[in-house]
């Protein structure tokens, strides 16, 4: 049974019996999952467990899905990514996916344009990442990997999401840089934003999470709280032992 947070608010995101298909292949298999406002939820699992497919389905980029993805009580079925982002779900994509020939400022501003246009402005992002203010006229392709990831996270935050999806934000980065990115999670959470984190690095992922789901071959094998679960139990479900 999934562990639900001891809160009376209805979830921001409720995924019920979700399956995601690529052609005949079922990448995600009947997953139930929820995220509440101001809650950090981690999804852990090995390569190919369906983590990224799950995020893609939520943002409206999956080929074909079954089941229900409901956001603030509204079914997202049939809605395009632009509509979903404008309603307040933003993705920090795996591999950052910046626009290399655009300046840092232009990349960030695109996040604002596609989003809800709320209280988080570009100065807030520069407050989180002062280095980006210095580099704001440079092209994204000229930045280091860590700075690029800051732009990717800043772009998603500028959409003023109520739900933030983070796909492998630590991939290929130095530990110091990862630390500086993860240090922001509590500040984002404090704004009442729900965060769904997909991460290979189990230790880091569980350290920041209120709850977590472990995926194996597209299915949820464990849903719990980091504090309530021993590392052995997590590893058993991670590898399906």
């Amino acid at each position: 049974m999934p562990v639900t947070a001891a809160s009376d608010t209805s979830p921001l995101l409720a995924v019920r019996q979700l399956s995601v298909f690529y052609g005949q292949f079922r990448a995600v298999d009947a997953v139930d999952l929820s995220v509440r406002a101001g809650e950090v939820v981690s999804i852990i699992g090995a390569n190919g467990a369906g983590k990224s497919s799950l995020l893609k389905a939520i943002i409206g980029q999956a080929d074909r899905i079954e089941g229900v993805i409901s956001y603030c009580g509204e079914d997202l079925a049939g809605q395009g990514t632009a509509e979903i982002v404008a309603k307040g779900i933003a993705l920090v994509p795996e591999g950052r996916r910046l626009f290399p020939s655009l300046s840092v400022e232009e990349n960030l501003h695109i996040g604002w344009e596609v989003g809800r246009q709320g209280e988080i402005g570009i100065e807030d992002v520069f407050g989180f990442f002062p280095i980006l203010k210095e580099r704001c006229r440079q092209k994204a392709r000229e930045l280091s990997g860590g700075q690029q990831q800051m732009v990717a996270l800043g772009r998603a935050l500028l959409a003023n999401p109520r739900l933030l999806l983070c796909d492998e934000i630590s991939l290929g980065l130095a530990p110091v840089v990862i630390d500086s990115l993860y240090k922001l999670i509590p500040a984002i959470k404090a704004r009442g934003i729900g965060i769904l984190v997909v991460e290979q690095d189990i230790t880091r992922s569980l350290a920041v999470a209120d709850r977590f789901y472990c995926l194996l071959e597209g299915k949820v094998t464990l849903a719990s709280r980091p504090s309530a679960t021993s590392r052995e139990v997590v590893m058993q479900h991670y590898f399906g032992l």
Partner: protein
Amino acid sequence: MAGAWANQIIQGILLGGLYAMFAIGLSLSVGIMRFVNIAHGDLIVLVSFLLLTLTTRLGVPLLVATAIVVPVAFVGGYLLQRLLLQRVLGQGVLSIVLVTFGLSVIIQNALQGIYGADTRLIQGGGIETETIQLAGGINIGMLPLAIFVFAVALVFALDLLLYRTRLGARIRAVSDDVASANLVGLRSAHIYAVAMGIVGVTVALSAGFMSVWTNFDPTSGPSRLLVAFEAVVLGGLGSLWGTLAGGIIVGIAQSLGAQVDAGWQLLAGHLVFLAVFLIRPQGLFPK
């Protein structure tokens, strides 16, 4: 003798302005959407015939007719991209070439059916015969000069639009990476269609100029496409200023070729294109 050559170079530069006008739209579609629109020249001819109808049948002055046609061409370009070209984009180069080639054939035959095969020219209201006398017996036509100045202004304006506005940043973002654009919530199909609408505006403007300067008939499109294509490749893909330079180079080459022998005009342009292409296949000012 030297005066004659200097004159041909000046005339060639001005002719290059018209060629740049043909090529700017193609340069945008190659640079942004990364496809070659085989029907580009035919679209220019199509709008020229539209202008012909407005000016001769309805008696609208050419400037007013062009002002009417420009917004129509924007909407036409938008719909062409959204309803037709977008469907084959990303399916390999061959699909888009075949679709626009088919469009080219359709436009040529439709124009033949409606207007017949006669060669046409639109009256510009006197500007086409006005000239400025320069020292050394060089005459500059007001119309070629106006077209040249307009072409430079258009490149300048489009450069500002692409590199200094939010719309331009969105267009460049989609051009950088369509999949990433979709992933972050940009409406790439709409943005591409707006870009093609802008291409439509340049098509309408170049049709307005072409139809008073040079003769046209329903089959003139491919030769306009060829000149535009040479200007785009010479200048370097994706560079609007390069396209202007490419148009001027083709214009000068043709003009000097014609000075040697009238029959050499077109060939000289193609030979210079081939020569530059061999030495610098990436073009003169690649992005």
